Structure formats: C-alpha cells, structure tokens
C-alpha cells in the first residue's frame, strides 16, 4: 500500500533483533530500536480502542520533543488522542501516507501505520520502557 520507496527501504532496514526488542509505553505506543534511531507507532490495542481513524496530525521533521510531550494527534469519529514522545529526541521522518490514508493505523499498526522516526538523545531511556510481557499484562488488566 502506497509506501514510498524510501520508506519501504527504511522499514526493511529494521533488523530482526530490533523487532524482538520492541518496547512499549503506558500510553500504548510501541517503540522499535533501529540502527540510527527509533520508530514509534500505536499498538493494536490502542487502534482497537480508538476505532476507525479518520485523520492524523503529524509533527514537523526536525522538531525536538521531551519525553511525554504530545507530538501527534490521532482522530477517530468519536474520540481524539495525543501520541506522546516516548523519549527526549528529534523527529527525523514522519509517515506522510497517514495524511491521505489514516486507516493504515487500523489496518497495520505495527507496519504501514508507523507514525514517526526519531533520534533519541539518550538511548538508555528505552530500557525503562515496558517489555512485551509487561505491556501484555497492562493490556490484560485494562480489558478486565
């Protein structure tokens, strides 16, 4: 689906080991570490809670955010949610396909629906995020 050549190569560049090390935030963002930075999106659970996404507001490339700053907005029909920066860092890429195809967030939250790529100031911040198990536990308790 509509990914540009650079973005395709960008996704392919993700080493498998990085995917295994996927981390999560309590705000339901996922974070994949790659060679030169991180990719951020929202989780399957988050997209399901939002329902059909109808528009996405993306940050500007080059802007820096502190940890937990709101950097993007995802609107569905009945709700609106901020996407928070999982680290202190600078935005290097945004997924512009989301502007014309916001439904990618619903259809493919972990692949085509990625939101931004960032360069963190301090990679150690990744270590304090939730692991897969911890996140599964968080979602499990939310569903009860």
């Amino acid at each position: 689906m509509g990914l540009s050549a650079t973005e395709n190569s960008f996704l392919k560049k993700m080493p498998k080991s990085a995917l295994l090390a996927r981390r999560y935030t309590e705000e339901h963002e996922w974070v994949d570490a790659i060679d030169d930075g991180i990719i951020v999106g929202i989780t399957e659970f988050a997209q399901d809670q939002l329902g059909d996404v109808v528009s996405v507001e993306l940050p500007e490339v080059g802007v820096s955010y502190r940890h937990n700053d709101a950097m993007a907005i995802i609107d569905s029909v009945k709700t609106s949610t901020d996407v928070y920066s999982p680290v202190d860092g600078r935005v290097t890429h945004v997924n512009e396909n989301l502007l014309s195809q916001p439904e990618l967030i619903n259809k493919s939250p972990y692949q085509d629906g990625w939101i931004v790529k960032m360069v963190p100031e301090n990679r150690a911040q990744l270590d304090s995020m939730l692991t897969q198990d911890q996140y599964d536990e968080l979602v499990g308790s939310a569903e009860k």
Partner: protein
Amino acid sequence: MTAQDKATPGNLIFDYDQANTGHVHTDEDGIKDQFPERDCLPLPNVSEMQVIRHYTELSRKNYGIDTGIYPLGSCTMKYNPRVNEDMARLPGFAGMHPHAPPSHAQGALEVMWELQEALKEITGMDAFSLQPAAGSQGELLGVMIAKRYFADMGERRTRIIIPDSAHGTNPATAATCRFQTVTVRSDERGNMDLDGFRQAIGDDVAVVMITNPNTLGFYEEHLQEITDLSRKHGTLLYCDGANMNAMLGISKPAEQGFDMMHLNLHKTFSTPHGGGGPGGGALGVRSFLEEYLPVPRVVRNDSGHTFDLDYNHEKSVGRVHSFYGNFGIMLRALAYIKSWGSDIVNVSETALLNANYLLGLIRGSFDVPYDRRCAHEFVVSTRRFGEKSALNIAKRMIDYGLHPPTVYFPLIVKEALMIEPTETESKETLDRLAGALAYIANEMNQNPDILDGAPHTTAIGRLDEVMAARRLDLRWRPPKG
C-alpha cells in the same frame, strides 16, 4: 435528469436551478470599474413555491419537541411556548436597530433590565451581563473575568479545577484562556471527590468550575467543604448553570457559595433550541466582580423610570458581542419568567418529580451506576448489553418515534444514556417512554441483530460517519462547464 428525478426528496435546492449560468453582466448601473467586481455568482434561481416545498419537505425529515418527547440529557428540551415567538416578532422589537439612541429604545432596554433583575432574584447573584450568545460564551466571559480579576490583584494563578463529569466546554474554556485544567474524579456517590479536591486545590488555582446539579444528575453533596476550601485559597467558584432547571426557587447558586455563573436561557427559560441555536448565555456575578462585566451595561436612571446604556466602566473586560447579546432570546425568556412569576418553583419541582419517576420505571432494565435519588435528570448504563449497546438502543428508539437521550456522556459512565424528561412531559408520555425502553431492552436480549441495523423506519438508514470524515463532502459545487 428528468423533472421527476429532480423532485426526488433529498435533492439540494441547488438542483432546482431554472437557468444554469451564474455568469453576470458587469456593465449595469455604472458600478463597473468602481471596485473589483465578481464575474460569476453561481446561486440557483428558483421560484418561491419551490423553496417552500423544498424546506417543508426537509422539515418533515426532522424531529423536534413538537413531534414528541426529546429526553436529551443536559439540554432541557422543554415545551417552547408559542406566544413567546409572537412577542419576539413584534415589529416594535424585531425592527429595532441596535444603534437607535437609548431615548428611543426605552422598551428594549426595559426588557433587558427586567430580565437582569429576574435572573438576579432567581440565582442570588448581584449583577448580570446578557451579552454572551450561548452558555459556552458565558463561561468564556466568566473565566476572562477571573483572569483579569487576579491580574488586578497582582496574582498569577495558572490552574482551573474541573470534575471529570464536566461538559467538554469547561476544560476547553479554561484552555482558551491559557489555564491548565486539573481534573478531579467523582466519588462513589457521583459527587466531586473531596479527597481529590483537597489534593488539587492550592493558591495557584484561579477557578473551580462546577456544574450543579452535575452531569450525572446529582446535587453536589460536598459543596460546603469545597466552598470553604476555595475561600481559604482565594479561589473563585464558578457554577455552570446548564442544569439550572433543577434549582428554580429551590436553591440559589449564590447562596450555595458560587461567585459567578452562567445561565442557558434556551434551556431553563424555554427559548427554542432552533436545531442548535440561537441561545443565550447570561453571566451573573457577585458584587465584587461586577465592575469587570462587559460594556455597555443596561442601567436604570435615578428617576427609576428610564433606562440607559452605560459604557463607563474602566475595569470592564471589554465586550463579547457585536451589540448587546441575543436580544430576541432575552425577550422570550422574560415573557416565560413573567408567565410563571413566583410560581416558577413548580417548574423545577416537577422536573425533579418527572426524572425520579422515570428513573424508577426504567431502573430494572438497565444498570444504575450511582444508586441515589436524582435531580432533574439521570444517567443509566447499558453495559450489560455489551459494547455499542447505548448507540444501538438510541437508534432503535427512533424506530418507535422517540428521540434518543444523550449517549456516551458523561464520559465516566460506560455505555451511558443520560435522560432528562423535563417538567412539560405528562405521566402518560413518561410511561410510554419507559415501556419502549423496557421493550427495547428485551429485544436486546432476544433479537440483538435487529438493533444493529436500527433505525429501520426512517427515510435514511444508519449513516457512515467514518466515510463522512475520511472523504470530506462539505458543500455543493457548481457543475463544470
């Protein structure tokens, strides 16, 4: 397209055009070259009868209070007396230009002054501004006044406390005036949680905004403690008067400790909602805030018989309306208040009676998240029927000729139905509404599929809101060529 196709209901008025060119001649009347002119005005030309038929047809696809019960929680959809429409249309009022000199607008100014006096008596506030055009604008004006008040006191306050049951306008208003919102959760009885409030209050809190009764339909039970704590910190108490229909003659917000409040004239005082406006959002304040009210203010001269517009208030925050506010709405509200006089307490007492009676009738069919007597409205949850059940029940009500209640609000109740019957509905209507809801709840158990596709009886089925938002079609465009 044949003539018959064109007559299909649902056509836009633009489809009826009797000549399909919008191009205009630019050489008429010697206006040419005086200023940049337009060369195309693509509005349709149609006959008066076509217009009447078109909009009559549209009206038949709409539901109003005149059609049947409209139990939209927090909106106070009561009967709108017709005589008030006649009064607003009297040429002596409808034809008044706002720049007529006060000496020639004495009747209009007296209407405003009389309404201010009545609202002062009803709320206990010391002064009113009738300028705000809606509740949300009244609220905005209130927070602007608070901001100026603290600036005058040389204090920098940055936060506003709002309970989690509040209308979205409250935090949006705070944000518009660059305050930070602190949300306090509700306790197990549906009040603002006192411990949460104690933690949130402080010397940097400018305003506490409370809707009373709150959006769960309950009178706040800890108002005394909240008032005392707020006073201790110099914080102003703001009452969102959306639910004033539960307090007429029963209790005055100023006596409950509030410093400011807005009233929704279109809710409490029966001016028609008009499909979403125009309304009126009068703002009342206690005397120490009076000098901040917008100008011009309507005053009575020393003689006691004449009225004037007073612009000389140095501390006024300015103004929020092109003129003096929604005068036509004020006029209807005054006529309504005069028709009740001191007996207006019957309005609120009956609103309470109707809501509690209806709650008793339907509590068996749904979950009641807070088990206590309600004020003029109440909230039930349909969560036992699963996700989207509130939506499905609402849509199914349309099949039975009933307007649905407010759904999915307040946000703190899952699958919420927020029901406000108002005082003008009869016992039979309430019985019928409860019967229909019980019937639908039964359908939900027996045959949930039928609810998924509801409504079935309307000219149009459930509309695709996702498509509407993704593929924006917000206007008609003239055909090319």
